[in-house]
């Protein structure tokens, strides 16, 4: 019905391999993009600063983690450390007078170098042991960040981040920051969308399915693992920098601790492994749902005259967060992206359901 494919005839390979071949999807993308562009003028400033902006930045980070976890199939339980390295490197560079664009790129490159260190674990082991070794590396990185004064400025110190600057112009307005963040997320999204059309993307998928088998058909699995770790670390590093410049405005070691790594993993899993639209859903779900549900519970308790302690209210969001992961895994292990895919598949041929293979 909505996703009508009648009348689409591909006369060239280019049109067949376009990103969006179904007109409805093309127009939906255009509409969404137009809405994203006018959003700062339509939505309240509270919604932009406290919901939309963090959501976009986290989505970029989740897409980066999805590259390594969903596409290359390599576990990464230390992604927050990578983001933290990128954030610290770019903040230090910007504070020392490096132009902002270069500082952020430097942050990404630093994160890439650290990401390659993580990748050396992938040379040796995979599966559970890779997960555990990257988790251990996260702890080592946490320790390094907080105990090396040259990075964090001393134990439990906070580093102020200078404002964003593009071509020398400081960007301090809400809308301006929003557009920078939006541009970065769209860039990462385009990269991920295009990945499935490239040799790199296909090689990564081959490595994910079975690295020995990939090696047999001539895909150098270790080289591609390394590339995947470095590329996803670059995205993570820049996203970490964006998080600090565009949302926190200051950087402390706790912002990139191990629980953040787990939160990112939860976003990927809830959104769906390897799913791009799922990354958007997953980030929104994990970021916004617990707080909203908590507000709802507090409101209900007030309505019913129940007395829930302050301490209990502080822990209920975590409970909901844990329950969300469990429930999504039980109902649809491939995440919200798969749910969207199911709806799309149904509507593709509706009302002729029997056409579906």
């Amino acid at each position, binding site marked *: 019905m909505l996703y009508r494919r009648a009348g689409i005839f591909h006369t060239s390979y280019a049109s067949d391999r376009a990103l969006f071949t179904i007109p409805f999807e093309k127009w939906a993308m255009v509409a969404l993009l137009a809405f994203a562009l006018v959003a700062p003028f339509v939505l309240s400033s509270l919604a932009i600063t406290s919901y939309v902006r963090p959501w976009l930045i986290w989505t970029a980070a989740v897409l980066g983690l999805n590259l390594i976890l969903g596409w290359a199939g390599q576990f990464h339980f230390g992604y927050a450390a990578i983001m933290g390295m990128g954030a610290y490197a770019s903040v230090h560079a910007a504070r020392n007078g490096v132009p902002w664009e270069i500082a952020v790129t430097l942050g990404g490159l630093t994160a890439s170098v650290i990401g390659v260190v993580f990748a050396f674990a992938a040379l*040796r082991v995979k599966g559970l042991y890779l997960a555990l070794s990257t988790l*251990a*590396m996260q702890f080592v990185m946490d320790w390094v960040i907080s105990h090396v004064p040259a990075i964090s400025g001393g134990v439990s110190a906070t580093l102020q981040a200078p404002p964003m600057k593009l071509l020398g112009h400081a960007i301090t307005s809400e809308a301006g920051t929003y557009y920078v963040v939006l541009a970065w997320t769209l860039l990462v999204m385009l990269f991920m969308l295009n990945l499935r059309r490239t040799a790199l993307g296909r090689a990564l998928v081959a490595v994910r399915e079975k690295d020995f088998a990939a090696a047999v058909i001539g895909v150098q699995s270790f080289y591609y693992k390394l590339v995947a770790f470095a590329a996803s670390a670059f995205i993570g590093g820049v996203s970490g920098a964006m998080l600090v410049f565009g949302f926190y405005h200051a950087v402390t070691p706790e912002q990139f601790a191990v629980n953040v790594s787990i939160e990112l993993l939860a976003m990927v899993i809830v959104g769906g492994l390897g799913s791009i639209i799922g990354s958007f859903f997953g980030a929104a779900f994990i970021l916004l749902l617990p707080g909203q549900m908590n507000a709802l519970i507090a409101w209900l308790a007030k309505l019913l005259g129940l007395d829930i302690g302050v301490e*209990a209210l502080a822990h209920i969001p975590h409970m909901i967060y*844990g*329950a969300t992961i469990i429930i999504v895994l039980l109902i649809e292990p491939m995440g919200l992206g798969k749910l969207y895919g199911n709806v799309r598949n149904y509507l593709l041929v509706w009302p002729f359901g029997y056409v579906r293979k």
Partner: protein
Amino acid sequence: MDRMYFLELAINGGLAGLMYAMVAMGIVLIYKSSSVPNLAQGALTMLGAYVVLGFSDALGVPMWVAIPLAMVTMFCVGVVIERVALRRLAGRPIVMILMMTLGIDIFLRATTMTIWGGSGRPMRLGIPDSPLFLGSLLLNRAYVVGAAVTLVLFVTFMLFFRSRQGVVLRAIADDYTASWSVGISVERGVALSWALSAVVATAAGVLWGSVQTVDQSLSLLLLKGITVAVLGGMDSLGGAVLAGALLGILENVASGYLDPLLGGGTRELVVAAVLILTIMIRPHGLFGRHDIERI
């Protein structure tokens, strides 16, 4: 003097390490039977300690009644977790299983905090605070008791694995398809291993609760438990006990000498380094089974 200091660090560390082994034993029990790396073991440990306190506070019963009651409760909790959450994920990619156990970890921790609150509480087992003298060495009495309990548990498990039900568990650990085909109820065996592991977690929670206080930090024993489990080999109970003692000695001695130099926090660093080095050098651990992969 210096040698005495070293010995004291090493022996106390080894005893504490045997208590880590208790957490690791829970992980090993589950991994052996169902190849599920249980990252919720820390949360189970913490929940166990809180349930014991809950029974002793709510019913006003003495500790020696509250602990068995809590163990029975935790036995049921273990069965429920396996039945509700893990059974449906059997055969799924390991990332989903890992994420499920992490989700359970977050959920259990937050639920415990919601019910009992975050402030630390003492666990009074009646172990005197005064140190035990071994020659001129000072030993922490709580560690001695904990290490003894670990060894008792280990021997109990060794005997249990010779019983009929234990043989069933060993068969499942060896090859679950084969056990299926000879009529063993694999599901029931796996559920039993979860239940046993939750009971072991309760014991660990009680003993660690008496060493420190009962609060959220009990769930951080997970990192130490999983390190011990990997170092000993994920499917070897004896390996877990030996690796626990090793890690405890290493951690205590290293932090005793390095903490003044590096400004604290080296405990976690040593544990993480041991985990990384084990995986890099000998992924299957000291006594684990070396898995061969088929293409």
